[in-house]
């Protein structure tokens, strides 16, 4: 089904000239491309370029590095950085601190005169939240009013490069479901480059962390899912969790 895909590394200053039979897409369109004129683009960050040749030529640009920029609807994992009278300032690994209002967290009006905000969340606490509002002129606003969101009370947090989160999830969630199946861990992926692991035991957790770090280091290579699967099986054999199976 998928025809030949050519993969190259593009650097700042490289130019892409489009003609009628080409289209451009991928995570880098808004951030890693600068439109010089009508149909010439300049690549602005170190990125991966996939060229897919069907009847139409498709170019996909994926940045390899860069800060996380909040987008409305993103699920992020944040750490409480500061507390105000009626809201929390949350570090989401972006250039901007995010705001989570106490009334949103509790789900009813919050009165700082009668209630202490630190009772609910304090500095250093981890929350899973959704970006409710962001337009770069003000700090991003978070909400926890949805399924699976809220304070995190158990698990371990792994930080990786935000631009490589796409690879941790994989095409049609292939990577993440393989990871879950192989390590028996529960993965919560925040698009800001934080992954929360809840694992049955310490050995499996360690393997899962190693696998995540390997994905981060090799995110730009092809056939990654298979290689990671092999890596996890090898690690499990090394630790005596399973017997070797070919």
């Amino acid at each position, binding site marked *: 089904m998928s025809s030949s895909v050519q993969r190259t590394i593009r650097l*700042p200053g490289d130019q892409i000239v489009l003609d009628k039979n080409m289209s451009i897409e991928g995570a880098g369109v808004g951030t890693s491309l600068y439109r010089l004129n009508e149909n010439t683009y*300049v690549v602005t960050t*170190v990125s991966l370029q996939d060229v897919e040749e069907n009847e139409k030529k498709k170019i996909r640009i994926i940045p390899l*590095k860069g800060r996380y920029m909040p987008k409305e609807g993103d699920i992020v994992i944040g750490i409480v950085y500061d507390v105000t009278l009626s809201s929390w300032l949350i570090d989401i690994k972006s250039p901007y601190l995010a705001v989570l209002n106490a009334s949103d967290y509790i789900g009813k009006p919050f009165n700082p005169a009668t209630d202490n905000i630190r009772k609910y969340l304090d500095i250093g606490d981890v929350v899973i939240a959704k970006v409710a509002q962001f337009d770069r002129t003000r700090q991003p606003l978070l909400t926890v009013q949805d399924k699976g969101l809220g304070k995190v009370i158990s698990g371990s947090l792994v930080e990786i490069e935000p631009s490589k989160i796409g690879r941790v999830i994989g095409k049609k969630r292939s990577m993440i479901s393989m990871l879950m199946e192989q390590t028996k861990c529960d993965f919560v992926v925040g698009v800001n480059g934080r992954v929360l692991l809840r694992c049955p035991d310490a050995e499996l957790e360690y393997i899962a962390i190693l696998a995540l770090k390997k994905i981060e280091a090799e995110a730009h290579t092809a056939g990654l899912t298979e290689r990671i699967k092999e890596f996890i099986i090898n690690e499990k054999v090394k630790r005596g969790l399973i017997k070797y199976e070919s």
Partner: protein
Amino acid sequence: MKANKPQLIIEGKRVDGRTPSDLRPIKMEVGVLRNADGSAIVEIGNTKVLAAVYGPREVVPRHEEQVDRAIIRCRYRMLSFSTMGERKSPAPSRREIELSKVIREALEPAIVSSQFPRTAIDIFVEVLNAEGGTRTAGITAASLALADAGIPMLDLVAAVAVGKVDGVIVLDLNEVEDMYGEADMPVAAMPSIGKITMIQLNGVLTPEEFKKALKLALDGINRIYNLQKEALKKKYVEIEE
């Protein structure tokens, strides 16, 4: 000092054996520091410069932030042990403050700062060993570090100095040539867009000499630019086996 000036060009060769259009040997490496968002080390001859980039991050004195773009802050510094002879005082000198501004202004046109309003990008350039051409090496290293940090840039910036030594236009001056030469002209440019971001001239050049020198500089910049691209790519190709 000018009185006992040594002969700088003997039989068409310069003091270190180069021809007028030769660069010194160059080494570059990207991602050398763990804590920085991006970093690079550049060696040009005996000049060695380390650059680190942090950000985009929150602007710490809040009033400095700009609502429409990121502010870029740069600090150029020479380490106490970077020069020969007397130890250099670690306090920022007049020269270092000026060069910080020069390097910042050479890089600013390349950075797409409008993508990160209300933030700051910090660039640190530390000269580990100085032997001529530290500002150009600093610009080259800082632009690599910016690219390594994933900060959007229209192009990499490469820089080199040209000058007139014993009446000959030469590329990439070293310390002796800079000290006793007749002119010194550092140039920085974005080669694939074809724009010059910095040009300074110290000394006297005739219009013809200036044109010749600029052409030589842009040629040198192109060579450095290709090395920069190689260094950036190397970081990713190595993992691919």
